[in-house]
């Protein structure tokens, strides 16, 4: 266990020493919040709460996608990675350390959104709703972590960057994160239940608001989780087979 913490700590140090990467993680969701949500929701607490919830999902899904997708594929290209495998530890501490480190940046990505939501909008959530929201966040972040790992282990870093960038906007917009629940343009409402972003958002909306989650979207989120778990496992094993067998 202490080795997991060691790996997490040094991976965190590696990332935090490039401040612009950290600011990038925090800036985009916060800016979306400040420029789109704050002016448009006015003094409507329900709309502000849903929009803040959407932005939290946006922040966590994109952070998972980029953090794991690009981080893993860049590390795979570095000779440091096989060197670490010669140390007396299996592959697990490095992997677990990576997930822990990812969680820290996940928190960093949505914390500003919550602060802006609380300070600059009428959004409200009770402690129970916040706790439920945390559960929704975890359930929603898992498939995006797996998607990031799939991309990171399957693709070289330049391709991983391009694929992550290609995916993140359609996922966010197509999942209905840019609009109030049920208020997205017609075609988005048609496709969004089939995207994992919508399922994650449905859970989050239900946690903090008075809303029953859409069944199709939640079922699809579960299916995405299983499919992406298989994808990540496949990509990880393939990478192991190529570099360490």
């Amino acid at each position: 266990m202490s080795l997991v913490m060691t790996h997490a700590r040094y991976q965190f140090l590696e990332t935090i020493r490039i401040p612009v990467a950290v600011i990038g993680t925090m800036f985009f969701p916060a800016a979306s919040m400040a420029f789109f949500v704050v002016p448009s929701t006015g003094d409507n607490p329900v709309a502000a709460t849903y929009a803040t919830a959407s932005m939290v999902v946006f922040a966590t899904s994109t952070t998972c996608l980029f953090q794991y997708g690009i981080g893993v594929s860049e590390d795979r290209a570095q000779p440091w990675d096989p060197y670490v495998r010669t140390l007396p530890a299996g592959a697990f501490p490095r992997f677990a350390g990576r997930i822990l480190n990812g969680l820290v940046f996940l928190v960093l990505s949505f914390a500003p959104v919550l602060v802006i939501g609380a300070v600059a909008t009428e959004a409200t959530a009770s402690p129970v709703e916040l706790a439920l929201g945390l559960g929704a966040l975890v359930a929603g972040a898992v498939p995006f972590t797996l998607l990031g790992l799939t991309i990171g282990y399957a693709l070289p870093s330049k391709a991983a960057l391009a694929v992550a960038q290609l995916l993140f906007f359609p996922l966010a917009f197509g999942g209905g994160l840019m609009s109030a629940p049920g208020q997205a343009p017609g075609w988005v409402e048609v496709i969004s239940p089939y995207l994992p972003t919508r399922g994650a958002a449905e859970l989050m909306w239900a946690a903090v608001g008075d809303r029953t989650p859409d069944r199709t979207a939640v079922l699809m989120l579960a299916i995405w989780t299983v499919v992406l778990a298989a994808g990540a496992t496949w990509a990880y094993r393939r990478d192991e087979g190529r570099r360490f067998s």
Partner: protein
Amino acid sequence: MPEPLARAIEVSRRYGDVLALDRLSLDVGDGEIVGLLGPNGAGKSTLLNLLVGLRRPTAGRVELFGGHPRDPVRRKQIGVTPQETGLPPTLRVGEVVDFVAAHYPDPVDRDELLTRFGIEDLRRRQTGGLSGGQKRRLAVALAFVGRPRLVLLDEPTTGLDVSARRALWEAIRAFEGSVLLTSHYLEEIEELADRVVVIGQGRVLADGTVAAVRGLVALRRVSVQATTLPPLAGVVSMTHDNGRTHLMTADSDQLVRELVGTGAPFSDLEIHAASLEEAFLTLTTET
């Protein structure tokens, strides 16, 4: 005889169509300093990667301290410097040492280690800002962090200038455990190793003391303008091109004396020290 620290037993390793190792066997005994010498692509790095558990053999078996190299417990007693220096650029030198040290039960004191390798002044520097030679010294130092019984160094001094190379040799020589190192510099192997294993095309071509192997690989090339020559003693190999004849020999003085003595016509005599590449080629074609 005590159990060897590392063993390769009839090991073959194939990458696609390329056979990198061909039923190679090698033991590294306790206290031995073994130099693996061979041209690029001979299979030296592949052998090291098998011994540290990064790769699996296609056939045959590798052992580390009598067990499987993939078992982390076995790897507690080794230290590794890979051929390529890859250090996390944003971490400081001291942090990299601490990170590696965290994997071992009884690591060497950080400052003591850095001093031993002459990089104590760099402790606070990020590795991304180090020169190539400084990075290489750190990469070699990391192999010694865990007080290993066996260190495996893959071309430890590649890319270093003469003084840095000497300093690193000093530090490696001061180590009291066993060493398996690869190099394509005969000089480096002579400085460090007591036993030399010459590898070519995935096989052991020669295995012996530095002096014995030096006699095998330290060849001279005697070239003359002549199309035919009488048979001469001490010629390891003979090639012809453009009307010249090239003779590889361990003793060029004796060969020239003998050549002159035969009275055979020749002109434009040239003698060169054969490069290691040429020597390897001779060894490979001979066997």
